[in-house]
């Protein structure tokens, strides 16, 4: 059954019929399993992987992404959990991880402009109780994200007919 999830994670648009053929699992079971996963939240939602750098439209619609390292003062009883969850609730924050190393949290923040992200960090993030310091790294160019390389695929150099 895990194979069904692996296929969907690669290509959410595969039909249940195709998944059934690829895995050898009867299509009724494939559909039932997917319905269960959707109901139970194993499958959260389906989305497209978009290379925004390749979208040539209104430059004002650009999205700015920054990685923000946050140092915290831990609190007895809760460690970092309460602050991390508080940060995660902001819609601007796309991801939050507790990490090893000299900083405590690594967050990804998105905004409409460098100014918007800077304001968010200085006014919202750094003013949260027990946030000791922040370090902001703006993304200049995306080469790879979540396993998808954002470069031109290599051309097929094979001859059309070979033995």
């Amino acid at each position, binding site marked *: 059954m895990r194979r069904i999830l692996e296929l969907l994670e690669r290509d959410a648009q595969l039909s249940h019929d195709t998944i059934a053929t690829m895995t050898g699992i009867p299509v009724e079971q494939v559909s039932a399993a997917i319905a269960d996963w959707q109901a139970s939240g194993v499958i959260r939602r389906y989305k497209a992987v978009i290379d925004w750098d390749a979208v040539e439209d209104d430059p004002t619609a650009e999205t700015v992404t920054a990685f923000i390292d946050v140092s915290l003062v831990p609190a007895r009883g809760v460690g970092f959990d309460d602050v991390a969850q508080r940060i995660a609730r902001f819609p601007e924050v796309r991801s939050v991880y507790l990490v090893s190393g000299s900083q405590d949290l690594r967050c990804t923040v998105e905004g409409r402009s460098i100014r918007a992200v800077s304001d968010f960090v200085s006014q919202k993030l750094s003013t949260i109780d027990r946030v000791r310091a922040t370090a902001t790294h703006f993304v200049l160019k995306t080469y790879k994200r979540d396993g998808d390389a954002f470069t031109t695929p290599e051309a097929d150099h*094979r001859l059309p007919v070979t033995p």
Partner: protein
Amino acid sequence: MRPLNSVIAACPPSGIRRFFDIAAEMDDVISLGVGEPDFVTPWRIREAGIYALEHGYTTYTSNAGLPRLRELICADLATRYGASYDPTDQCLITTGVSEGLDLVLRVLLNPGDEVIVPEPCYVAYEPCVAFAGGTPVRVPTRAEDGFAIDAAVVAAAVTPRTKAILIGSPANPTGAVQPPDALAALVRLAQEHDLYLISDEIYDRLTYAGVHTCLGTLPGARERTVLLGGFSKAHAMTGWRVGWICAPAAVAELCVRVHQYTMLCAPHVSQLAAVEALSAPGDDVDAMVADYDRRRRVFVKGLREIGLDCPEPRGAFYAFPSIRPSGLDSETFAERLLHAESVAVVPGGVFGPSGEGHIRCSYATALPQLEEALVRMDRFLRAL
């Protein structure tokens, strides 16, 4: 001018070549005629090749090939199949299985010796036997039997001049995987008549149903078996040209002797890349195999749905459907399909008379291309 070599001059050019020439001229061709992976070599292997170039590994290696690579190959055969070959004198690195086959045939054959070649088979088998001074003797296999080799049919072709039997499993062009009992029967036959067995196992890792049987591990086989393998298919390394021979020491020693005078060594950079291929756990091979398997299932089902009966291909990356319902011979079918719908397939007849009435379709092609090819083939069949 005086006549050229009569054996080579008498050998017809590969039937595949003509289709390549036509297909190369056309736009929008979906090619199911490609006999190599559609993956590029995994990056860690390419990176190792780049490193080797940067650090000047541009020299010859020893004739038999890098000791480290031979050790890795023998260790891999041992863990995967329980085969025991000594890397020092029973293994050599060749410039692809193609060279390996040529070496082995030259070493085994005296002029006029016969080699039994079950067909349909890879297009090079018969010419290589002939170039080595031998006489290829075809024996048929049948789609109804899943192209399993029948030892009784092979036995009927044995003569006092028979020297060896040459088989490929998993097979190009049929995708057939020889059942272990069929292989065991061939080993008994070889023992009975004192024959060598040449086993082309280049597609060993691409086995989807059941497990691969390494011929050299069957009881009584090892002393008379020559194993041919390589990196082209499993590691998507066709252009690097690295293969190997594992054989009894007496055979391997003479193979090295021919190799040292004709090839000297396999490319150094490619050998180092092959070392990397075998050094890390085979996750990328497993991922590629799983991907071929998914496409295999979709494509074979699709062929059957458009009315082309297809024996289940259990290995390699070829489907070999029957085109009998079309009423066309395989050459005409392939040519008309190419012109009418721009889908390139290889006529089964080029792989031997038993391949007639079939076409070889490679599913080492992106899934959307395979699906589009099925649509076009369906339209072609309906218009006949």
